[in-house]
């Protein structure tokens, strides 16, 4: 039987599937539920210094090929969020805390507080394409990525994972910036900037006009980003974008990821998508003679 255990920057995971930030992770109860459904770790909703309402509805639209969203990072703020993290941790969940801010100081302050709640690692959401005045600029400036990562590294002991945007010309150069800033790992990718238009109503569907595309449509893009980053940096990569099946997860590992995150697939496969993906990975690894996750990481680069 293949073993699914993996490790990302020193964080040991029972399996390589994590809940992606922004899905069922605004509350401790839901995070615990996802943990029980089999996720190797749960990444929290991205939390900022203050409570944030996010955008007005419509904030979501389902395409055949994926999901468009512009929820706008609603979150209760880092202070109120303590009880959610604590609830999930007490229940036994492996929690990674996702944070954002307007600048390096805010990132550092929120990350520090998040770390103090006992999370295993912090993930820096450097990449939200739809929250005005937040991620967009940061995601598109390698120096900001470096500076923020460095500022956070200074104030937390747990590993720091920089999450990158695909809405740039060369994502690997952002991974390099994260490495310079001291990141212990990178996560790729966040959503791809997109819109939907309703012809009958002659208007964009999202209240925010612009949103981020996730789900199957972006899998080939996410895979490409992980593959590119793996060629350029040596720190571990967490792959995310359109993973629905165990086979998708294995493709990400072969492209260079040591763990994966799953979000949109919850829609199609339910909350136990984590257990399902793990079972599929295990079966595939057994059938193809892979004993452990590490044996898959980056092997597509061999050819």
């Amino acid at each position, binding site marked *: 039987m293949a073993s699914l255990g993996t490790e990302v920057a020193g964080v040991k995971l029972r399996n390589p599937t994590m809940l992606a930030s922004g899905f069922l992770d605004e509350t401790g109860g839901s995070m615990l539920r996802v943990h029980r459904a089999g996720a190797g770790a749960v990444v929290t909703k991205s939390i900022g210094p203050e409570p944030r309402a996010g955008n007005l509805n*419509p904030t979501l639209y389902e*395409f055949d090929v994926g999901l468009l969203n512009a929820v706008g990072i*609603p979150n209760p703020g880092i202070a109120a969020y303590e*009880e959610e993290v604590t609830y999930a941790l007490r229940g036994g969940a492996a929690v990674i805390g996702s944070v954002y801010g307007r600048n390096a100081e805010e990132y550092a302050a929120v990350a520090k507080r998040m770390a103090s709640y006992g999370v295993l690692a912090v993930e820096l959401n450097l990449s939200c394409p739809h929250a005005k005045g937040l991620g967009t600029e940061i995601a598109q400036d390698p120096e900001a990525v470096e500076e923020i990562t460095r500022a956070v590294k200074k104030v937390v002991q747990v590993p720091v994972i920089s999450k990158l945007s695909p809405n740039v010309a060369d994502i690997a150069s952002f991974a390099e910036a994260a490495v310079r800033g001291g990141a212990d790992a990178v996560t790729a990718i966040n959503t791809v900037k997109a819109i939907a238009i309703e012809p009958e109503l002659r*208007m964009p569907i999202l209240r925010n006009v612009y949103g981020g595309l996730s789900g199957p449509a972006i899998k080939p893009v996410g895979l490409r980003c992980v593959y590119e980053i793996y060629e350029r940096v040596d720190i571990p990569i967490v792959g995310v974008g359109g993973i629905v099946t165990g086979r998708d997860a294995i493709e990400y590992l072969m492209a260079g990821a040591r763990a994966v995150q799953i*979000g949109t697939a919850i829609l199609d496969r339910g909350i136990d998508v984590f257990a399902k993906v793990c079972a599929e990975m295990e079966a595939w690894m057994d059938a193809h003679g892979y004993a452990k996750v590490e044996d898959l990481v980056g092997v597509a680069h061999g050819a």
Partner: protein
Amino acid sequence: MARRPMHIVPLLGILDETHDTRTYRFRADFTAKPGQFVMVWIPKHDELPMALSYLGDPKGVTIREYGDATEAFAAESVKGDLVGIRGPYGNAFVIEGSRALAVAGGVGIASIIAAVEACADSGIEVETAFGARTEGELTFLDRLKRCGPVHLATDDGSAGHHGFVTDIAANLLAGRHFDMVLTCGPEIMMKKVVEAANARGIPVQASLERYMKCGIGICDACAFDEYLVCYDGPIFWGDVLAKSHDFGRWRRDISGRRVKV
């Protein structure tokens, strides 16, 4: 991906139910069960979860002017205007037993009316206890009366019992044997109804309301204990609610903060 399409539909008719509540009818090609809801996109304003008050053809939602979006909708919308409808979402009232009591408060009637009709259609004897602030807010009375006895309560005594609908419900439950209770309305009201039914060991289903963004179980806006109102609910059974930490106590505001119900 399993796509649940957005239906863009014209409003076929708008009916004033009370001074602040209207029913909007539309045609959309899906079938829904009593208690299920849809997300209603009011272009330029908002997208809100609404119970289906009419399940047949045409379908309908009954909306109370409550805040910015619903007020604007009431003020601006005319027959023929387009709205976006996606759904149906959530679970449904389980229609079973032989004698059912429906307890509704205010616009909660919009969620429960289809269930009352479904009871009557399945040969279940059904009575309704319905409360509102004042007589003018009691709506769907014809549809209710066609299904079975209706007991009214108003805060101001302008119709029926002068007082809470929960008083009537308690009396009815004490007076005769019901084997199913359905309820929708203000959460404090539902809490009393659920406690009363639980105390007598009668199965009870309550339809909850929470702030919703996605309506499809991914965003966590509607979290309730470890449940999601949009996905596991909106209808929860009395035994679950009895053990609930949040029911009647806590909801989440738009930023996800825990606040008093």
